[in-house]
């Protein structure tokens, strides 16, 4: 009897299953985040590590010194503000391009016969089995002045002088859209494949031409997929570093590159941390909107 009563307080198997991922998140996500947050409030110092502690015990006095200078600098130095705006702009345009390319792809894959559908889906996913870095680097070979694209176009006589695409913002857009397209296509596909085709027949029956039925039935019903796809592309694209670094020119200003510069070139850990924290706050807005929308959607389904 006693043993049984005690057993309630001994963590069981179910508890362990939940604890593992939580512990993982705590160790590798929450604690590193708190460290970055701490560094962002410290001051640059020539030391190892290169910042001052924010908590000091000197002369029997415990002092907590929060340095807001890093944050103030972010908002006063137009360099940072421009980098944030430019990141958001590049991410937003890339997301829109992904949507414009990905929606028709997802739509037609969802309408295919189930057998061909799987092949098409594989074709979308397969490239991501190759290293991300390698795929981005492949675009250097394609877009270079001596690259495949220019040689092909000149060979065909379309152009006389090679197009300058590599190391321009255009190349960064191409790279981002290429790399993130599967993240747009997959949630859209998952949504569109569930669409009840009888709803479209009902719309035709009531006088809607195919394109009207698309606008009034298919598009609104795929809203959840559109939002999910846009979030999956937009959020990582804002902080993207590798693609603008490898494909974009010096004028492709993105916050990921600024962060890199602060951390590795200036060795200014506090400033880099502040940049990262503010980026997180900016991304939090769309994530919260997304969550709220999903929540509402779930409630709508249940009642």
């Amino acid at each position, binding site marked *: 009897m006693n043993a049984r009563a005690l057993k309630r307080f001994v963590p069981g198997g179910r508890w362990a299953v939940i604890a593992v991922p939580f512990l993982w998140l705590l160790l590798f996500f929450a604690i590193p985040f708190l460290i970055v947050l701490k560094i962002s409030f410290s001051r640059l110092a020539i030391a190892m590590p290169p910042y001052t502690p924010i908590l000091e015990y000197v002369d029997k006095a415990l002092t907590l010194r929060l340095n807001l200078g890093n944050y103030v600098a972010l908002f006063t130095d137009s360099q940072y503000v421009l980098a944030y705006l430019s990141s958001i702009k590049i991410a937003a345009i890339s997301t829109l391009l992904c949507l414009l390319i990905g929606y028709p792809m997802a739509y037609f894959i969802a309408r295919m016969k189930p057998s061909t559908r799987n092949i098409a889906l594989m074709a979308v996913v397969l490239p991501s089995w190759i290293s991300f870095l390698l795929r981005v680097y492949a675009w250097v070979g394609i877009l270079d002045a001596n690259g495949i694209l220019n040689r092909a176009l000149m060979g065909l006589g379309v152009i006389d002088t090679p197009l300058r695409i590599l190391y321009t913002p255009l190349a960064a857009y191409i790279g981002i859209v290429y790399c993130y397209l599967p993240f747009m296509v997959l949630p859209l596909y998952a949504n569109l494949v569930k669409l009840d085709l009888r709803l479209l027949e*009902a719309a035709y029956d009531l*006088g809607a*031409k195919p394109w009207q039925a698309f606008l*009034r039935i298919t598009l609104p*019903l795929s809203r959840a997929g559109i939002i999910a796809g846009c979030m999956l592309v937009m959020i990582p694209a804002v902080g993207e570093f590798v693609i603008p670094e490898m494909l974009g020119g010096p004028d492709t200003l993105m916050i990921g590159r600024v962060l890199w510069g602060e951390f590795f070139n200036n060795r200014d850990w506090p400033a880099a941390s502040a940049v990262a924290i503010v980026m997180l706050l900016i991304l939090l807005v769309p994530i919260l909107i997304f969550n709220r929308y999903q929540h509402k959607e779930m409630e*709508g389904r249940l009642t």
Partner: protein
Amino acid sequence: MAINERANGTPADAGAERYLRIEGVRKEFDGFVAVDDVSLDIRKGEIFALLGGSGSGKSTLLRCLAGFERPTKGKIVLDGEVMNDLPPYERPINMMFQSYALFPHMTVEQNIAFGLKQDGIAKDAIRKRVGEMLEMVQLGKLAKRKPHQLSGGQQQRVALARSLAKGPKLLLLDEPMGALDKKLRSRMQLELVNIIETSGVTCVMVTHDQEEAMTMATRIALMDQGWIQQVGTPDEIYEQPANRFAAEFIGSVNLVNATIDEDEPDYVTLKTPAFESPIHIGHGITGFPGQAVSFAVRPEKLDIAKNEPAQPHNKARGTIEDIAYFGSHSVYHVRLPSGIKLMANFANEQRWASEGLTWGDQVWLWWGDNDGVVLTS
């Protein structure tokens, strides 16, 4: 085939008699014939049922009417206008889908307004029409609800209101009661008929449920394997089946093989190995002596008792093998000496009335001169 059908000069009443004409419609899918040269004339304002099992072609024919399928051959003419080449969104035909196909992201109101908006009607006129429709199906209070917040019966009424909102020339119902439970079904059948009759629309419905077809339809076309087996009013189809298929599909029936013995203008007698006495029919038929036919008689037309009836024909002797008690009536399965089993209904008009007859009893079955039907095919 660019003939204007209106120019053919059919009289006005003939137009009402043949409001919807299905002329030799055939539909093939990759060599499989789903609908095989079906011709039907449907009157203005009637509720016409296409009744048949799965694979009978009834749904394909309905989809041809709606415009979702193109007939391989034949013509569909509605109110003098050939429908064949019109896409579904240009036909004056609306359909109530089997699972209703209500738009889940729109309210009841928006669902009903969908077709009207599509026609570019003024907002005020749409609001007025939607109001009328909601009143007709008694859903005014639920106008702002989404479909998933409605019960099955309410969803059905929304679907009906949506398909009637545009005032179509032809209303199509695809298995209208398919998604409802049994109890709700019988109530909604009559309610649906009332609404359809009030609106005066011509209606073609598809169903596999004979009770539903008999309750709701003014006329029924019985379909099997792409063919029309019989067209008629519910009582015609029940009491005067055209062939063995029709007799067996609707209700239950006793069928025996027989040959024509005497073929006179005012009576016919049949010989059958099934019964010890001959079958006597009180009217003439088109046939010849010696012709092999089937004799069909419904269980409720048979009388059952322990004593031998006085009549010299139309009777059979046997042993009660099974009794199915249904409350309102009992069905006795009687095995004859020939090995044939007959079903006879006994109405339980008095309480405990059926206690007199039990398993193993020797009984006589008999029927009147006009209770059975001779089937030549």
